């Protein structure tokens, strides 16, 4: 694995005095999909804006494909595409022209075949002659994506690409992202939706109050998240787990009024059926059963809460 975006000790204090980033370091791998998850005001957009050249960092260093974003800005920016969080488009321009403009701005000659391909992949081809102001919000967001793809970036930043987009369209966008990954494009997306990170990311980064709290493989996170607890409440309390149930990973809880069973939802067999029949065979009477999942949401909330 090679690093394509290398962020080192990045800080940003805005003119207002607000410190939006506190020494952020992050290595983004070539070809991966990284989801940046964080609450409002965490600094996601600030981080992306600095990497893309829109905001000046207060200190720290960023390299894209080995090029420093300040001293070698042309080479660094040439490989980066950005889909901003806010919908910012010239209302009177046509879809086709604005996409063509983006490609030109990145120093590339017009390529009608490529532009057609991009517009078709985002279901915008029929709207190519329409003015931006005639489009719906979801369509405008896709125009922003088309603009970013028009110059064939190797690294694509999607700042909340699915905010205000319906479920159907969200799926379409994920498909586009998958297609780009297949072409080797590195994708960084920010989102508030944990399901979105789960659905498409390889790695998940959690950012809060200008700090990166964790960057982990989704598989590792999923394993954490995949663990589930079953709480079996008993009719009458017990002193110790009966010998007959020794084979199960059981612990006594609530002063012996309940048993806790931890299992992996990812496994083919969870062993619940057999456990329950063995419990009644051991002479215990079950009053109630609850399950609790350690979700990414929970991990996320825990991390963000710990930070306060």
């Amino acid at each position, binding site marked *: 694995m090679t690093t394509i975006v290398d962020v080192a000790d990045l800080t940003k204090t805005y003119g207002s005095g607000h410190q939006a980033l506190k020494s952020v370091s992050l290595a983004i791998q070539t070809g991966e999909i990284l989801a940046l998850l964080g609450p409002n005001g965490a600094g996601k957009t600030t981080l992306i804006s600095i990497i893309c*050249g829109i905001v000046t960092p207060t200190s720290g260093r960023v390299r894209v494909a080995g090029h420093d974003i300040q001293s070698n800005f042309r080479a660094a920016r040439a490989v980066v595409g950005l889909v901003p969080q806010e919908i910012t488009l010239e*209302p009177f321009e046509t879809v086709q022209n604005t996409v063509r403009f983006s490609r030109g701005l990145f120093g590339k000659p017009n390529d009608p075949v490529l532009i057609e391909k991009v517009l078709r992949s985002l279901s915008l081809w029929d709207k190519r002659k329409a003015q931006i102001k005639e489009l719906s919000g979801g369509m405008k967001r896709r125009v922003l994506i088309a603009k970013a793809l028009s110059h064939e970036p190797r690294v694509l930043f999607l700042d909340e690409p699915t905010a205000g987009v319906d479920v159907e369209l969200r799926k379409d966008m994920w498909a586009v992202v998958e297609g780009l990954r297949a072409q080797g494009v590195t994708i960084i997306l920010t989102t508030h939706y944990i399901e979105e990170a789960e659905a498409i990311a390889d790695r998940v980064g959690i950012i809060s109050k200008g700090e990166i709290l964790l960057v982990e493989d989704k598989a590792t996170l999923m394993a954490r998240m995949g663990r589930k607890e079953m709480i079996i409440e008993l009719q009458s309390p017990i002193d110790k787990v009966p010998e007959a149930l020794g084979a199960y990973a059981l612990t006594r809880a609530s002063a012996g009024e309940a048993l806790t069973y931890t299992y992996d939802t990812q496994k083919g067999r969870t062993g619940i059926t057999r456990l329950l029949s063995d419990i009644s065979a051991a002479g215990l009477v079950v009053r109630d059963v609850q399950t609790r999942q350690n979700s990414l949401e929970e991990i996320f909330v825990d991390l963000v809460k710990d930070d306060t």
Partner: protein
Amino acid sequence: MNLQGILAIYRFEMARTFRTPAQSIVSPVISTVLYFVVFGAAIGGRIEQVDGVSYGAFIVPGLIMLSVLTQSISNASFGIYFPKFIGTIYELLSAPISYYEIVIGYVGAAATKSLMIGVIILATAGLFVPLEIAHPIWMITFLVLTCVSFSLLGFIIGIISNNFEQLQLVPLLVITPLVFLGGSFYSVSMLPPAWQTVTFFNPVLYLISGFRWSFYEVSDVDVGLSLLAISVFLVICMTVTWWIFKTGYKIKS
């Protein structure tokens, strides 16, 4: 050098003009015709000649300058203010294009538009009065220099303006009075001596005077001085633009 990028900006800006031809081209022509009717016909009937040139013909260079100056400023200032206002400037800032290339794109387009308007007005004027251009090369030189330097001024105004009102302020409150008081419609020698002295502090006087000289070889100030004035102005505007981009003033946070 990102030539494609410069061209993309240039084309985009030119397309905007042709999307609203009524506002961009027709209206300056109509106002010129009105000036001719009012000044040329009404006043020209009383003032026969100025410095040996018929009054109608005398005011042509001033009229062209009036339009070219205001158009250069408003085109360029709007051109850069609009992306800043609606947020599409993110694309300029994240593209592999340098600041001076952005300036060339925007200022080039604004200057081209005002040059076109200048030529259209000249042609319109030709329908009313017989035109003679003694030094066509100098005429074009003055025109182009004016278009470029005032488009650059417009670009600066567009960047530092915080709202549409400020955008209108400079052309309205500064440029129009300076043009009117800079001898567009009269020769400075027609003024009382005290006012003549004041007028010599008006930078626009040097522009109009030099431009008029290229038509009729009559001028209020030496033509070399005119050329110097516009060159100095151009250098000042370039320096300010360079500083704005170097510091990211009002563009980047």
